[in-house]
């Protein structure tokens, strides 16, 4: 038994080391600088704590709650037994030996990690110090990263002047982290039942009041934040000097996101309507109070909200995994570019000359081009949809991915039509009745603010249409098709029509988004439409919650907005998202703000009363989130 737990501790240390080594190799310590060692030690402490927590739960016969989204709780997705409710309660006080065991294990794990890290940095430093150039790779890692890890300057390494004490310090640091993790784990375990009792007592004594106060605080938070943003925009107010712009952007993102949670916190009925309307007004005011940069980021976020909503129809509602979604985005953008940019491309110009139109003036304005872009994208959706009608699941994903690449290759190589990599320049801006928007709003609205406002309104519109459709017989047909295609067809769902409608509507939304994107960018190039647009759109609906419009907004805020705030670590963006995709699939496949349908399966079946309250209010709050449908909630409730 001791040997076994020792190996387990060493293994934990190894896993932590593997992760830390990865961080070192991608250059994280160099970014953090002087405090790299404590940060890495804390990360390893986190690993050790997680492992010990699981172990302690196993000891007392309680499985750690895998979180609301884990598979164990989903009826129908698993084969094995899933009931873990017969857990015995935690013990009140731990015998001394158990705590000692915990500490030993934690320190052992920490020492393992620390030793390995010390060896890694020691080997690198020695090699550097001896002037050995192992590989360009290691040359890149060693000077900055290892220096940050050992806590010396790169010069000292180059001179081979690193004292041995530095490496001992590393081991001590990680051992300390292990000790800390062990103590925390042991403490949490012994006090579990007391904490539980205390929590129960507080809720019994002051239950409704506390909950209500917390709820009001939650609902009020976004408004406070909105007010703060507005205040920050006043002349003469600045925070942290030059970083003010980024700070305000961050608060804007948080305010919008917490607004979604506030809606969920508010009670259905009048309260929710009021909160929704106020929040909607607050968000609508944002384009007027933010500056050009903040507006351009928020505009991009909401363009991606439109994309996400469209892709959600295809993936979330109809269950067709489309990885070539960027194609429709590109079609929308290029259609608008052809229609509105002067001398957009040789082919279009000669065509216009042939028709007797001057190629230097835009053919159609933004509003006239909108239906054209939408229709072109929809046609693209149908054209792509027809050949893949019979494909299922993963085949569909790969083929649509291929389509996306084909479109990109065509954009690059059809120089006569698309100008190839040189792109299309000077795309005209959307105007209001022939006037520039700033003249209408007396200069309150910057050009990017106008784009942001348009993106807001369009995504609200798109969300409205998506939610209404999903709530109709079409939405039911989509969902039925997703559940069982053959049975859906035998029940009377016209598969071809239903699938093509999903593709076409999804593509239309992407076309709208693409047009707005082209207007935002002014100049567009094929590399704006790489596979990563598809991946971003997919990632944001998955992280936010498939099938849930509120989740999509949240996902877009997190995935497209946050990286702009954290400019310094932008290079880690894709890696983080990619890891997030995998982790979300394992830990919480339903997303952060799951849709009502997905939440049903998470809830205990016994909680589902015959009146299906959860369904109706879940759907209703989703409707409200868009800030459009006021009577939708009532319609929902009487309908269910």
């Amino acid at each position, binding site marked *: 038994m001791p040997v076994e737990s020792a190996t387990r501790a060493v293994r934990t240390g190894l896993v932590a080391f593997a992760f830390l080594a990865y961080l070192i190799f991608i250059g994280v310590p160099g970014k953090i600088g002087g405090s790299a060692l404590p940060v890495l030690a804390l990360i390893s402490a986190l690993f050790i704590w997680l492992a010990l927590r699981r172990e302690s739960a196993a000891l007392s016969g309680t499985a750690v709650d895998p979180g609301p989204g884990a598979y164990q709780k989903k009826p129908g997705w698993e084969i094995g037994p899933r009931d873990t409710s017969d857990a015995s309660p935690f013990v009140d006080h731990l015998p001394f030996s158990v705590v000692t065991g915990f500490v030993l294990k934690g320190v052992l794990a920490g020492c393992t990690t620390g030793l390995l890290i010390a060896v890694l940095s020691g080997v690198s430093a020695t090699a550097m110090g001896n002037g050995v150039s192992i590989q360009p790779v290691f040359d890149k890692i060693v000077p900055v990263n290892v220096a940050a890890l050992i806590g010396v300057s790169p010069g000292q390494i180059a001179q081979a002047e690193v004292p041995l004490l530095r490496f001992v310090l590393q081991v001590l640091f990680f051992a300390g982290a292990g000790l800390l993790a062990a103590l925390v784990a042991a403490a949490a375990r012994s006090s579990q039942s007391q904490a539980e009792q205390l929590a129960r007592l507080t809720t019994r004594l002051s239950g409704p009041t506390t909950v209500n106060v917390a709820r009001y605080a939650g609902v009020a938070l976004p408004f406070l934040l909105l007010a703060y943003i507005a205040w920050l925009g006043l002349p003469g107010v600045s925070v942290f000097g030059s970083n003010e712009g980024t700070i305000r952007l961050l608060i804007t993102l948080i305010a919008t996101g917490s607004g979604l949670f506030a809606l969920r916190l508010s009670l259905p009925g009048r309260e929710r309507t009021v909160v929704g309307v106020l929040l909607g007004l607050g968000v609508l005011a944002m384009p007027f109070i933010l500056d050009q940069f903040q507006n351009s980021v928020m505009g991009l976020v909401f363009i991606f909200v439109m994309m996400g909503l469209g892709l959600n129809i295809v993936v979330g509602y109809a269950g067709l995994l489309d990885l070539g979604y960027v194609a429709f985005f590109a079609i929308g953008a290029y259609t608008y570019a052809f229609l509105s940019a002067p001398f957009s491309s040789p082919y279009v110009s000669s065509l216009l000359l042939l028709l007797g139109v001057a190629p230097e003036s835009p053919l159609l304005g933004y509003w006239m081009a909108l239906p054209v872009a939408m229709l072109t994208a929809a046609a693209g959706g149908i054209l792509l949809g027809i050949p893949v009608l019979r494909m299922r699941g993963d085949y569909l994903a790969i083929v649509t991915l291929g389509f996306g690449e084909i479109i990109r290759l065509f954009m690059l190589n059809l120089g006569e039509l698309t100008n190839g990599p040189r792109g299309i320049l000077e795309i005209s801006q959307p105007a209001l009745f022939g006037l520039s928007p700033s003249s209408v709003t007396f200069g309150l609205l910057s050009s990017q603010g106008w784009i942001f406002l348009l993106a807001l309104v369009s995504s609200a519109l798109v969300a409205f249409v998506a939610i209404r459709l999903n709530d109709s017989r079409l939405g*039911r047909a989509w*969902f*039925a098709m997703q559940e069982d295609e053959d049975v859906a067809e*035998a029940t009377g769902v016209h598969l071809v029509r239903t699938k093509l409608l999903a593709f076409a509507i999804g593509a239309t939304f992407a076309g709208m988004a693409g047009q707005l994107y082209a207007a935002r960018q002014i100049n567009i190039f094929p590399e704006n439409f790489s596979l990563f647009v598809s991946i971003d759109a997919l990632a944001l609906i998955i992280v936010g919650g498939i099938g849930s419009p509120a989740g999509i907004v949240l996902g877009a805020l997190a995935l497209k907005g946050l990286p702009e705030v954290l400019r310094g670590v932008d290079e880690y963006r894709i890696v983080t998202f990619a890891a997030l995709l995998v982790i979300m699939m394992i830990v919480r496949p339903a997303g952060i703000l799951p849709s009502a349908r997905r939440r*049903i399966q998470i809830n205990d*079946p016994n909680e589902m009363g015959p009146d299906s309250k959860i369904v109706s209010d879940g759907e209703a709050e989703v409707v409200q989130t868009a800030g459009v449908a006021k009577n939708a909630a009532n319609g929902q409730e009487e309908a269910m």
Partner: protein
Amino acid sequence: MTALLSVQRVTKVFGGLTAVDGVDLDIEERSITSLIGPNGAGKTTLFNCLTGLHRPEVGEILFSGSSLIGLRPDEITDRGVARTYQNIRLFGRMTALENVLVGQHLRLEASHWSAVLRTARQQSEERAARELARDLLDFVGLSGREGVVSTNLPYGDQRLLEVARALGSRPRLLLLDEPAAGMNPSETDRMMDLVHRLRDEKGITVFLIEHDMKVVMSISESVAVLDYGEKIAEGTPEEVRANARVVEAYLGPEVEVQEATESASH
């Protein structure tokens, strides 16, 4: 009186295996007919041919006078043929009510535009659909269960829900694939009662596959027997029970051989 459903020389071949071999069958309007036969006799394949999942190589299927051959499953459902499945195939993550609403898909006509705009007509149609769905759930005995996600329903209730979903398309002919399989005696009684009420109250013709001979003999007006894809007998329950070939097919001298070939063909 012409038959509601007329199956003529229907043959379906999978690779080298003839699953259904020249079957002729007539089903009268408002009758209850059973299809029986040993495992692997081709009963479900025949159902699949009737509902358009398979296209028979040879033969004709006439439903109230017009051919069903070559129609898509949803078109056949539109003509008035609905079915349930041997291994229950509900839309698992939908509630009971939603399952029945999908069943009504074909009978709802409001355009998708009207769904976006929530026109009065679309709203009243939706209300009526929900009303009907609730009625159908009541009819099969699932009142008060409409909000339950279908995978959370007990097994017997899932079978009833499949019937309710099939009724959503307002069929004239209902195909039930082993409706009483895996049910306990009281659930079986409920199902038999339901089959009777389907015919008596709703005027629906019922054609069912069943293994439970007690059920078959007590509810059906006529029985057809398939063995190795061929129809070997047809008639009233009494006639079929007395038929020597049927007895042989079920108990026959070569029980073991037959089982062996069956498992080989799987």
